[in-house]
C-alpha cells in the first residue's frame, strides 16, 4: 500500500471513531450551555484532514506530512480543534521525516505532538487534552525500547490516555464540579482508538449509541443547497420512510420525524416546490417555512459594495466579527463590521473560514472580534497564517464585541483600534440567560436540565423555573456596580421581556436600556452593561 493510501485509511479510521462519539463528547460541557461543542469541533477538524487527503496526490512522506499539517491548521475549529491541529503538526513533522515507522518513531512523534500542543496554548492547563497527550507520549517513550509492534504500542498508549482522561476531574476543579471529563481529552482518546483499530485490524468499539440528531445539529452542517425548507404534513397512515427516500433526491440536511398522523419535514434543497409537492401528495401541509440561505449573503455583499464605493480609500482597517443571529449580524454591519463569519455558540468557525474572511477584506489591516472564548485561539491561529496584518481583540461574547466595535475607527490602524477596543471591553460587564442543557451543580448551585440558567461573565449565577426571576437576578447583578447603559439582545424565540424591563426601569431610573432583536440561538438574552 502506498503511503497515501495508508494515511487515508488511518485518518479515516480516526475520523469514524471520533464521529461515533461526537454527540457524547458534545455533552461534556462544563457549563450546561451550548458553547462551542468540542465533539463537533474536533470531528470537523479531522474531517478536513480526510477531505484534504482525498484530493492529495501521492508523494514523498515529507510532502504528505506538509499536506496533513496544513489541512489540520486550516480546518481547525474551536479551541479543541486548534490544539488538535498542533498535535497533528507535531506528529506529522516526525513521521514525515522518519525512514521507517517503528515504536521509537511513534514515541518520538507523540512527544513532538505533546510539545507542540503545549506550545500552542499561552497558559497550559492540566486536566485537559494537554495532560492526555502528554501522558500518551510518556507511555510510548517508556515502551519504545521494548520493541512492541506499533499496534500493541498504540493500544498501551490508548489505555494510558483513557486513564489520564479519567483523572482529568481530579486535576481541574471545574470538571469535578460539573461531574464531567475533559471533552478535548475524550476526543483525542477516540482518535487514538480509531488508529488502534486501523493498525491492528480489530473492529472499532463504539462507546455509546449516538442520539438522534436534532434540527439544531443538522443546521450546523453547511449546505450547498439554497433553500432551508420546513413544513408539517398531517394525514392518515403517513409513511415517514418513503417520504424520506423521495426527499433524499432533492437535497441534504434531511430530517423527517413524527408519526402516522403528522410528520415534520426539514430539508435543504434547491427546489422547495418539489419538496412541498411530496408533502401535499400525502396529506395537508402547514407551517411552511422557506428561507433563502443565499439571499442574506447576497444582500450583504451588495451593501458592502456600495459602502466601498462611497468611501473609497480612507479605510485603513476593517473588522471581521464572528456573530450568530440575523439581528446581531445587522447590528454589527450597521456599526461598520466589514465581514461577519457566521458562528459562535455551538458552531465555531474553522481557522480557514477566519483566514478567508481576513484575506477577503478591502482594507490593508484587520481587527478580528472572535466573540466567544472558544474562538479566540482559532482567530489567533488565523491571524498568524493570514496574508494580511490582523489583530485579535479577545472578545468573549457578542454583546462585549458590540462595545468593542463602537470604538472602531476605520481610519485608524489595526493596532490603534485594538488598543481602543481592549479599553472599551474593559468597561463592559456581560450576562446571559439560557436554558440548562443538563443537570448540574456548580458553586453549590443546583440547576436542572430545562431550567432557565443565568450567567454572569459566562459563569453560572442563578437557575430556576421562572424566566423573569432568573433574568432579573442577572440584570441586578450587572447593575450592582455603577453602569449607566444596558444593552439587551433578545434571542430566537425568547420570552417577552416588557414586564421585566418595566421593573428594571423602576428600580434603575438612571440606566438607559437599549433592547435589540439579536436572533441568536440558545441564548434568550445576551446582556451588556457599561
Amino acid at each position, binding site marked *: 500500500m502506498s503511503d497515501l493510501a495508508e494515511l487515508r485509511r488511518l485518518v479515516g479510521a480516526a475520523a469514524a471513531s471520533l464521529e461515533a462519539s461526537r454527540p457524547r463528547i458534545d455533552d461534556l460541557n462544563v457549563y450546561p450551555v451550548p458553547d462551542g461543542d468540542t465533539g463537533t469541533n474536533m470531528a470537523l477538524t479531522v474531517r478536513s484532514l480526510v477531505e484534504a487527503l482525498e484530493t492529495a496526490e501521492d508523494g514523498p512522506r515529507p510532502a504528505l506530512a506538509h499536506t496533513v499539517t496544513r489541512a489540520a491548521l486550516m480546518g481547525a475549529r474551536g479551541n479543541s480543534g486548534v490544539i488538535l491541529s498542533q498535535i497533528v503538526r507535531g506528529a506529522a513533522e516526525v513521521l514525515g521525516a522518519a525512514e521507517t515507522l517503528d515504536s521509537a518513531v511513534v514515541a518520538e512523534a507523540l512527544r513532538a505532538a505533546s510539545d507542540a500542543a503545549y506550545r500552542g496554548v499561552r497558559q497550559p492547563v492540566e486536566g485537559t487534552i494537554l495532560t492526555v497527550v502528554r501522558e500518551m507520549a510518556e507511555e510510548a517513550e517508556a515502551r519504545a525500547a521494548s520493541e512492541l509492534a506499533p499496534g500493541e504500542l498504540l493500544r498501551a498508549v490508548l489505555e494510558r490516555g483513557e486513564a489520564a482522561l479519567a483523572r482529568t476531574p481530579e486535576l481541574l476543579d471545574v470538571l469535578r464540579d460539573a461531574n464531567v471529563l475533559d471533552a478535548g481529552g475524550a476526543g483525542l482518546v477516540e482518535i487514538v482508538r480509531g488508529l488502534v483499530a486501523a493498525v491492528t485490524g480489530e473492529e472499532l468499539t463504539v462507546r455509546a449509541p449516538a442520539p438522534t440528531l436534532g434540527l439544531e445539529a443538522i443546521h450546523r452542517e453547511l449546505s450547498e443547497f439554497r433553500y432551508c425548507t420546513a413544513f408539517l404534513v398531517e394525514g392518515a397512515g403517513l409513511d415517514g420512510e418513503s417520504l424520506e427516500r423521495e426527499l433524499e433526491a432533492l437535497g441534504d440536511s434531511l430530517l423527517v420525524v413524527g408519526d402516522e398522523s403528522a410528520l415534520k419535514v426539514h430539508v435543504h434543497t434547491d427546489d422547495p416546490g418539489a419538496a412541498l409537492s411530496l408533502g401535499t401528495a400525502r396529506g395537508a401541509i402547514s407551517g411552511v417555512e422557506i428561507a433563502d440561505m443565499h439571499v442574506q449573503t447576497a444582500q450583504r455583499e451588495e451593501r458592502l459594495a456600495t459602502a466601498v464605493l462611497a468611501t473609497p480609500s480612507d479605510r485603513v482597517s476593517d473588522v471581521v466579527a464572528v456573530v450568530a443571529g440575523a439581528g446581531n449580524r*445587522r447590528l454589527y454591519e*450597521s*456599526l461598520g463590521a466589514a465581514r461577519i463569519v457566521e458562528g459562535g455558540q455551538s458552531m465555531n468557525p474553522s481557522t480557514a473560514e477566519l483566514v478567508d474572511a481576513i484575506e477577503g477584506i478591502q482594507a490593508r489591516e484587520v481587527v478580528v472580534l472572535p466573540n466567544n472564548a472558544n474562538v479566540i485561539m482559532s482567530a489567533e491561529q488565523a491571524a498568524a497564517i493570514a496574508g494580511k496584518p490582523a489583530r485579535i481583540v479577545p472578545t468573549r461574547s457578542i454583546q462585549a464585541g*458590540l462595545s468593542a466595535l*463602537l470604538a472602531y475607527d476605520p481610519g485608524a490602524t489595526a493596532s490603534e483600534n485594538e488598543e481602543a477596543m481592549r479599553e472599551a471591553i474593559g468597561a463592559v460587564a456581560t450576562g446571559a440567560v439560557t436554558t440548562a442543557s443538563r443537570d448540574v451543580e456548580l458553586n453549590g448551585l443546583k440547576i436542572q436540565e430545562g431550567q432557565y440558567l443565568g450567567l454572569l461573565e459566562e459563569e453560572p449565577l442563578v437557575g430556576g423555573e421562572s424566566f423573569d426571576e432568573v433574568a432579573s437576578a442577572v440584570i441586578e447583578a450587572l447593575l450592582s456596580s455603577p453602569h*449607566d447603559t444596558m444593552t439587551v439582545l433578545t434571542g430566537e424565540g425568547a420570552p417577552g421581556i416588557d414586564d421585566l424591563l418595566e421593573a428594571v426601569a423602576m428600580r434603575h431610573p*438612571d440606566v438607559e436600556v*437599549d433592547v*435589540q432583536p439579536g436572533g441568536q440561538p440558545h441564548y434568550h438574552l445576551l446582556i451588556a452593561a*457599561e
Partner: protein
Amino acid sequence: MELTAENTAVVVDSTADFPDAQARFPNWRVVPLYVLFGDESFRDYVELPAADFYARLRTSSVMPTTSQPTPGDFASVYEELAGYERVYSFHLSAKFSGTWESAKLGAGEKVGRRIRVVDTESASLGITLLGLGVQRRLEQGTTDEEIETLVDAFKRDAGLVFTVDTLEFLARGGRIGRAQAWAGELLSIKPILTIDDGEIVPVKRVRGNKKAFAEFTKTVEERTVDRPSLRVAIAHAAAPERERALRSMIRDVRPSAQIEAAGMLGPVVGTHAGPGAVGFFWFDDS
C-alpha cells in the same frame, strides 16, 4: 482707518442663533434664512420662534426643509447699513449652505471693500463667538488687519463638539458629511461630532447620554485652558436640561471661562440637527 462700533456694522445670518443681536448691539443685523413646512415658508426666528418650531416639528406630517436668504435679502440689509463705513458679514460654513454666496452677491461690487463677507467655516454659536470677538475689538477701536488676524485665529483655534439624538436629520438635509459612515446604525448611539474645515466630521460614538456628556467634559479638559480669555457657548435643540448640565460642568472644570451665549438652536439649525441636539463651542480669544 480705525474701526469702531460706531462706524462698523456686524451682519450675521440667522444660523448664528443670536436672534437678540440687534437689541444688544445697535451696529448688528441678523439676516434670516427660511424654513419651509411643505408650502409654508417662514423667516427663521422672525416668523417662527424656536419654541414654536419644535412644537410644530412634533406634530407636523411633513418634515421641514430650509433655504438660504436671497441676495436681495442681503442687499437690503447692507443698504440699511449705508451709514456705516465698514460692514463685516459672518456666515455659516459655505459647505453647508449657499448663504455665504448669497451674501457676496448681495454685497455686489462693494464686496471685499466696504463689505467684507466671511465664511466662518463654523455654525450656530460658533459664528456668534467670532462676531462677539470682533465687537469687543470694535468697542476699543481696531483695524481691518486686526480683524483679519482674529478671523484667522478663530478658524484655526476655535472648536466645537455636538451630539444629536439621531443622525437622521443631518442625513435627510444632506449635511451629514463624513458622519455618513455612522448613519443607519441600529444600536442607540450618541455620535460625538465636530465641524472641521467647514464639514461635519465624526469624533467618537458612545452609548447613552451620560457617556456623551462625559465625552464633552473630556473634550473641554483636553482642548481648553482655564483662563478668562476662554469664551464658551452652549446651544441645544429643545433640550434645556442638557444646556443646564453643560453650564454647570463648565463652571466646575473651567471656572474662569466666560459663558458668552447659551440658548436654543433656531428653526433652521434645528431642522438639520433634530430635537435633542446639543452643542458646545469655544474660542480662546487671547
